[in-house]
């Protein structure tokens, strides 16, 4: 028989029993819809998690801490110094290394002051690591300049207060009294701010110097990782450290460093290499993996619900087809006597199953898109937040899921139809002759 004739015959056979066919298709629609929506939710959650970390720009960044813990929990010391930074830079897959050169300072402006966490960076490195400026330019350092260039963290200007009265530097309307145009001075000597409270001047005490600051920019608030830092040129920080040995904690090397990998794929191998050098490493990928693990569990559960629905649908298909074969015993006998080949009979019934599967998948997909749109609407109105879901996620149905859903539906139907089709094929031609 020609393919089209087979298809048409199969379709007519279904069409003759419209209601039953539709009910059977309905079972599949429910099953496919639940599976597709569940998977789409899982994909959406995973995507939202990934996007979140991606937006922090930190998926390719490895945090390195000095020293490491051996397997029995003992701390093994290993400092991060310029040599190790150079070693990190030599690891394949590393784009840049940012030694965390921290300096804790005090900034005064008139009678107000605030604390400052200063990070010493080179302009190029800062860019690679995704420091973005709300305004201005990156700080530079030139030996002998009369002031030090600085970029403030986004909240510095709002955090000035009077050390004597604890009054915050705002006017009656709540506007900050300190602006970009205020004059700033940097010092590391607490006594310069609070005065000498113990009344006794320590032996050989020389008050810490004040340094003039030139505010060249403000960091953007989008720097999730670094937003509490104010930036100065690395050499400026090194020089200030040297000049204020008495007031700053003189550390050897760096407390930590950050490594930026070229792509996410290198993160694992770079981490391995750095750990082998004797350091402890952290990566946001750890968290993503954890999140993925969680959504994977969720999806497995959701998928199981859909699978049960599909199983029921599959049994429904089998039942419908067995019934229709019992009803059509005589008809099958007749077409066998008329010379319909066994293969054609099997194909005809399998096609009926496939048609059920196809329409079940198609309508299921349509329903899935509808459900997905509803979920997204609900999420957009903040419904997900009320449910305690951390990230606002969207239900997404990528093309492969859509195609896969229809295909899967057809496969399920095909498998359910296999036994009935074989039964139909084996029916005796004699059934047609007997008059009951």
């Amino acid at each position, binding site marked *: 028989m020609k393919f089209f004739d087979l298809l048409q015959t199969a379709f007519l056979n279904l069409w003759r029993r419209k209601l039953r066919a539709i009910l059977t298709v309905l079972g599949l629609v429910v099953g496919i819809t639940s599976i597709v929506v569940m998977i789409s939710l899982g994909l959406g959650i995973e995507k939202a998690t990934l996007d979140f970390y991606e937006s922090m720009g930190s998926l390719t960044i490895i945090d390195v801490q000095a020293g490491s813990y051996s397997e029995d929990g003992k701390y093994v010391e290993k400092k991060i110094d310029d040599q190790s930074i150079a070693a990190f830079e030599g690891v394949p897959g590393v784009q840049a290394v940012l030694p965390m050169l921290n300096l804790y300072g005090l900034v005064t402006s008139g009678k107000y002051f605030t604390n400052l966490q200063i990070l010493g960076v080179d302009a190029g490195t800062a860019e690679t690591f995704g420091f973005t400026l709300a305004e201005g330019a990156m700080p530079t350092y030139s030996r002998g300049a009369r002031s030090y260039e600085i970029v403030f963290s986004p909240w510095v200007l709002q955090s000035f207060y009077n050390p004597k009265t604890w009054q915050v530097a705002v006017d009656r309307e709540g506007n900050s009294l300190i602006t970009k145009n205020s004059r700033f001075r940097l010092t590391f000597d607490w006594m310069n701010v609070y005065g000498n409270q113990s009344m006794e001047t320590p032996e050989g005490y020389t008050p810490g110097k004040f340094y003039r600051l030139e505010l060249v920019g403000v960091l953007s608030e989008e720097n999730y990782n670094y937003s509490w830092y104010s930036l100065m040129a690395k050499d400026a920080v090194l020089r200030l450290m040297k000049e204020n040995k008495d007031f700053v904690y003189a550390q050897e090397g760096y407390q930590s460093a950050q490594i930026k990998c070229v792509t996410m794929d290198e993160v694992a191998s770079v981490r391995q290499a750095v750990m082998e050098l004797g350091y402890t490493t952290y990566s946001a990928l750890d968290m993503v993996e954890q999140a993925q693990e969680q959504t994977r569990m969720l999806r497995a559960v959701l998928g199981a619900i859909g699978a049960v629905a599909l199983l029921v649908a599959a049994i429904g298909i089998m039942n419908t087809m067995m019934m229709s074969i019992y009803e059509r015993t005589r008809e099958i006998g007749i077409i066998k*006597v*008329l*010379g319909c080949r066994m293969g054609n009979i099997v194909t005809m019934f399998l096609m009926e199953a496939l048609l059920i599967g196809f329409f079940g998948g198609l309508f299921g997909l349509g329903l899935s898109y509808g459900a997905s749109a509803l979920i997204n609407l609900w999420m957009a109105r903040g419904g997900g937040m009320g449910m305690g879901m951390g990230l606002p996620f969207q239900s997404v149905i990528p093309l492969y899921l859509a195609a896969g859903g229809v295909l899967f539906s057809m496969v399920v139907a095909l498998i359910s139809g296999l036994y009935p089709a074989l039964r139909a094929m084996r029916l005796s031609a004699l059934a047609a002759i007997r008059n009951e």
Partner: protein
Amino acid sequence: MEEKEVLLDVRNLSKTYRVGSVDIHALRGVTLQIQKGESVCIIGRSGSGKSTLLNLLAGLERVSGGEIVIAGKRLDRMSEGELIRFRQRHVGFVFQSFNLMPYYTALENVAFPLAFRGMARRERNRDAKHILQEVGLETHLRHKPAQMSGGQQQRVGIARALVTNPELVFADEPTGNLDFATGDEVMRTICDICKAAGRTLIMVTHDAHIASFADRVITLLDGRVVEDSSNPLEEK
């Protein structure tokens, strides 16, 4: 009678049904030869094995013993798939109870067996229309079985059996469900068409009058051939 080609050669054919622990011998050694173009009528009492013989010859049932050779091929050694292919090529079948597809029109019913042979729709309909004309139903092409009389339905059945140009046409009590006059007309139709096209017709009946349409009458009794005559009742 001049020398004719043997189309169907049956030797010592037997068929035994086992019902519970009892063997029922429906056929007990039937031997006969049928020439190409002959029209043969098998008669006999109810339960004598007529239908059984016909079904065996059409390859609808397996033999218990003996052999059937049709056009040089051993029917009793074919697999079910081969039997279907054999029927597709060589056999047309007319049923007592018409067995038309109720949801198909006369034309679609007649064209149906051609679809099994992979024929294109246009040729199918052309052939079907042609044969329906021959059985005198050119005005009822678009009628469904329920909209036709028994005689008309059986004409559609005959057209369906003949549309594939089979060498062998089997008919098991083709007039069994028709009244006397209609049965006569239908018999005339089927015999005329088969004779004109040189087809071999083997039919079963227990109506002696119907048997008179055939060239040859074989009488079965209790699973054996008891009489085989070039038609003694011939009156036409």
